[in-house]
């Protein structure tokens, strides 16, 4: 297993508050790596470390053997993309313009819109089913449509690695599955994905590499079938549960035990 994106002994802190200490994580190439864990355990913080949003106070994040934080910002942005948890769509921006912003790292003062840019944007909108929306205002879209547009922007960036922070939160179940299938397609086409997800069953179904975190540390990682056990879920979430095999996908299915079932 090769891992061109990997964190070595990193410590991530906000000011003096350490959230993650001496953590190492190798993201297998071409994997769909999904990070799970309870609220505030440091999943977003870890992703921010990978995304150059937070510089590790110790340790390094390597991308293709180079320190990610010392790469030129635009060069890094051609290799590694991010779908942030919250972004701002400027007032009055159309879908095509927003998706087009994803091409920024590929452009310069003289080449502000090349055929490659056009192709990448057209394909990203095609893959996310947003082509019909292209001249609509982003403000006027539904939550599900808007999330697809942001995904399209990240796809238009054409990076080998894509980081996703809770991409399906606030969407209904059908839109969640839609988006997860889209990511699965992207993964099949060769993009390495790292996603933070809350839904354990989606994580188990789609992940090729599952990482379970608690209190800023990695508790377990590997194939979801090995990682997701009743013991692990209880250890990570303090939640007693049963784990059965998902009759649809054959992956683990977590069934929480309520108070009554105990």
């Amino acid at each position: 297993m090769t891992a061109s994106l990997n964190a070595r002994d990193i410590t991530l802190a906000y000011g003096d508050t350490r959230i993650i200490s001496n953590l190492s994580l190798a993201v297998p190439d071409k994997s769909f790596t999904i990070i799970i864990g309870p609220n505030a355990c440091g999943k977003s913080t870890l992703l921010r470390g990978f995304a150059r949003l937070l510089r590790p106070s110790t340790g390094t994040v390597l991308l293709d053997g180079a320190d990610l934080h010392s790469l030129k910002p635009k060069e890094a942005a051609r290799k590694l993309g991010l779908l942030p948890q919250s972004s701002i769509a400027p007032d009055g921006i159309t879908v095509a313009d927003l998706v087009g912003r994803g091409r920024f790292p590929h452009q310069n003062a003289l080449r502000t819109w090349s055929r490659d840019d056009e192709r990448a944007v057209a394909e990203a909108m095609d893959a996310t089913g947003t082509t019909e929306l292209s001249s609509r205002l982003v403000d006027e879209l539904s939550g599900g449509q808007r999330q697809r547009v942001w995904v399209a922007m990240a796809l238009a960036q054409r990076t080998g690695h894509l980081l996703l922070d809770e991409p399906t939160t606030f969407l209904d179940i059908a839109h969640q599955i839609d988006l997860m299938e889209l990511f699965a397609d992207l993964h099949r086409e060769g993009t390495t994905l790292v996603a933070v997800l809350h839904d354990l069953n989606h994580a188990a179904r789609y992940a090729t590499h599952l990482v379970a975190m608690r209190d800023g540390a990695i508790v377990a990682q590997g194939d979801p079938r090995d990682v997701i056990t009743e013991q692990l879920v209880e250890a990570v979430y303090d939640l007693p549960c049963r784990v059965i095999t998902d009759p649809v996908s054959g992956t683990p299915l977590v069934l929480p035990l309520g108070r009554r079932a105990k």
Partner: protein
Amino acid sequence: MSIDERSVESTVESTVESTVDFGRRHWRIDTARVSTLIPVRSVLVCAALVVVIIVAGLASMTIGAYDVNFAAVLGAVFDPSSDPDVRQVVLEWRLPRVLFAVLCGAALALAGGIFQSLTRNPLGSPDIIGFGVGAQFGVTLMMIVFELNTYMFKAIGALVGGLFTALLVYALANSKTMSSFRLIIVGIGVSAGLGSLTSWILISVSLEKAMMAATWGAGSIASLGFDQLLPAAIVFAVVLVGSLPLNRTLPVLEMGDDAATALGISPGRTRLAAMVFGVALVALVTAAAGPISFIALAAPQISQRLTRSNTPMGTAPVMLTGAALVVVSDAVAQLVGVPVGVVTVSVGGLYLAWLLAAQYARRA
């Protein structure tokens, strides 16, 4: 590009329709080194603004004590063999004023576009958040207290005053992102404070000095000639070239620091550059003409509506809008017999009232 890469791309192209519908018409430039899309609407708006600037500029050169009609102005500008007296009046006395109006309008409007984009707020212009008043304070100090009256000293005073105010507002607002409403409120407060400090300096010096500063303080380009225009134009050219990259980076920064970083922008460095260039643009105008208010506030918004753009930051149309506003305001100012700053304040005040009402309605 290697042969096989090309073949891969062509197969990709055949499967996906490769024209993106932006909902507007573009002209495409696609050569080996330059490739870009230029919105047709922006080009038409810019062309119309250039016409307005030229016509209003020529018309404004007919105004004054010495009677010169429109045809004579045209003759003086375009025909070297026309009456030398008229040529002197038009080219040496009146032309610098029009050129100054263009320069001041363009610089202020660009500064406004930069700050409105940075703060993601149409109220976030240097007029409102205090940098203009800071620059004015710096110039007043230079003129009155240090008695340094040349353009370069005034420009330095304006720049230092503006930057200092920017730092003060930044620190008081205690905001990392510049996109908060708090920044604007603090800026208004700091403006008021610095404004009264400026007045206090003026009433505590001799009447003669105070009069000189007051003439400047009303925002006038009437008495300016080529010897003041040249240094201002050079500074403007330098600052403009330096700020050109912001035309591409600031709209990306409007999407938030996280998205901008992911797209390869350094938010901190971009904000610092924007702040310095924005203040410099205000300072170079303030040093020459005094405060000309509301252009920075209104021009980016007007331009954004005319071009139907999604950002107040669009160098060419924004600058042309500002230039047109000041040239027209200056012509009106001459007809009425007041400094141009008085005209822009009056018109701008109405605009600000409307803007506040519109923002309030949206929030409510």
